[in-house]
């Protein structure tokens, strides 16, 4: 037996020889060494045995492998493309949700439509050709008009108010005439300040009186113009509408509910809660023709402040019915 380091030099050659990868020269050297070194001969035999054992470990691939892989590739191919069905169903669901939300928040009767598509106040503002940026957002379905001038000067505000009043007041002054024409009710935006005194009813929560608004003068103060931007939304329904429908009871804010009566009939204005329980009856009596207004300051008939939330308002004028809503915050 030769020294370990000397044999070590030949072991790699023996490995190459066993694998059939040794060059003729290296194979010859390995063979000569094995003849002289019995330990390296044993080493070669062990190496051959080991490779035989390992090479016998070959396995056959399962028959179903091809089917399995092709199925996987096919499913992957299907998933990689744009799938129209989920996309379409998502869009449809979104539309349904939006529509449902719209219905919930509006509760709009069907007959209110086109007549308010181009409200006089909007026309008036447009005709004024104001030099400031006036943002007019029309929501035709909701029939709501939001007018917000970005810091207009007092003079500009006066022009806006005057033009708006000119457009609004004729309709308010002669409700029956307005009713005879196209719209079922007159357009009366919340921004029009009520210059006529509103008679207060004995009930603390219920204020109702015939609305006999005289045409306001054009010499309105700039302070009044601030009310324009402060007014959030006017929600108009068939027989009436809810103005200032977002109220904070802690700040003593009140919502206004106005109904238009064409001829003497039974008029009801009732505020409900979400469970359809009566919270407050604002008006329930026969009223002559005219515009009637009630205010609700977020208290029930017992005088207690209600909790925050959405309160549907039921308005009935004769056979016509309308619903609005008031949002109470604290």
């Amino acid at each position, binding site marked *: 037996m030769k020294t370990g380091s000397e044999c070590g030099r030949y*072991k*790699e050659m023996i*490995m*190459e020889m066993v*694998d059939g*990868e040794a060059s003729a020269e290296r194979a010859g050297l390995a063979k000569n060494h094995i003849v002289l070194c019995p330990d390296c001969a044993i080493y070669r035999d*062990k*190496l051959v*045995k*080991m*490779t035989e*054992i*390992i*090479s*016998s*470990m*070959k*396995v*056959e*691939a*399962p028959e179903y*492998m*091809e089917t*399995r*892989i*092709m199925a*996987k*590739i*096919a499913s*992957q*191919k299907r998933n990689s493309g744009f799938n129209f069905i989920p996309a379409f169903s998502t869009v449809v669901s979104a539309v349904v949700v939006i529509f449902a939300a719209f219905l919930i928040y509006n509760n709009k009767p069907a007959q209110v439509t086109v007549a308010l598509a181009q409200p006089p106040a909007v026309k008036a503002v447009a005709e004024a050709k104001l030099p400031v940026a006036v943002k007019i957002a029309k929501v035709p379905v909701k029939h709501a008009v939001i007018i917000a001038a970005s810091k207009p000067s007092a003079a500009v505000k006066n022009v806006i108010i005057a033009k708006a009043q000119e457009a609004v007041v004729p309709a308010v002054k002669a409700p029956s005439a307005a009713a005879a024409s196209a719209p079922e009710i007159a357009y009366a935006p919340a921004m029009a300040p009520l210059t006529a005194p509103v008679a207060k009813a004995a009930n603390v929560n219920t204020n109702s009186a015939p609305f006999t608004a005289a045409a306001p003068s054009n010499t309105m103060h700039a302070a009044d113009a601030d009310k324009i931007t402060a007014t959030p939304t006017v929600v108009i329904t068939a027989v009436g509408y809810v103005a200032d429908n977002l109220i904070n009871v802690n700040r003593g804010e009140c919502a206004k509910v106005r109904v238009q009566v064409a001829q003497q009939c039974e008029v009801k204005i009732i505020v409900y809660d979400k469970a359809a329980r009566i919270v407050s009856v604002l008006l329930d009596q026969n009223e002559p023709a005219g515009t009637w207004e009630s205010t609700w300051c977020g208290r029930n008939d017992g005088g207690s402040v209600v909790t925050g939330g959405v309160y549907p308002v039921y308005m009935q004028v004769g056979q016509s019915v309308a619903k609005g809503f008031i949002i109470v915050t604290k």
Partner: protein
Amino acid sequence: MDEKEIIEKVKKGETKYFAEIINKYKKVVFGHAYNFLRNKEEAEDASQEIFVSIFNNLKKFRGDAKISTWIYRITVNTCKNRLKQLQRLRGRMTEEIYEPGAEEKPSLVDRIKEKEEKEPDKSFASDEIKNTVYKRIDELTPEQRQVITMRDVDGLSYDDMARVLKISVSAVKSKLFRARENLREKLEKDEIL
């Protein structure tokens, strides 16, 4: 149909021709995966992963190298990565199921010898030896296990191994020699060699 034509057809979207590639290489791929991972289910999953990867990347195959070398390289890399994941998992599991005193049990070879003395059954002994060899191969590093599998199971030449592993032939020889020495020592202790 020649292999290049098949590849072109698959590239053009005729997926069904990919079945021919699977048929041709499944033995090599599954064989390598099985001997490398030592688990049939794992080998099947790995084979599926390999072929899906081949299919997805076929457009990138430009034909500079042999398709067999390219497929084999994907196989080797996928199996190596999978083995590392498995070893991490097994490491955690072994810690959980470790029983003190287990090392005092008779060795596998003792049990094999005992079994052979009682019921001389060559096939059983052969399977047991194979299992021991598998076990000892499992104890090698992934790199050592890789070269042994490539050479002794898959029968690759030194040149092919160098091409697949992207190393020199002398580096292949060196790696293979160290791996075999390590395995031989283990099997000698088990008295299998």
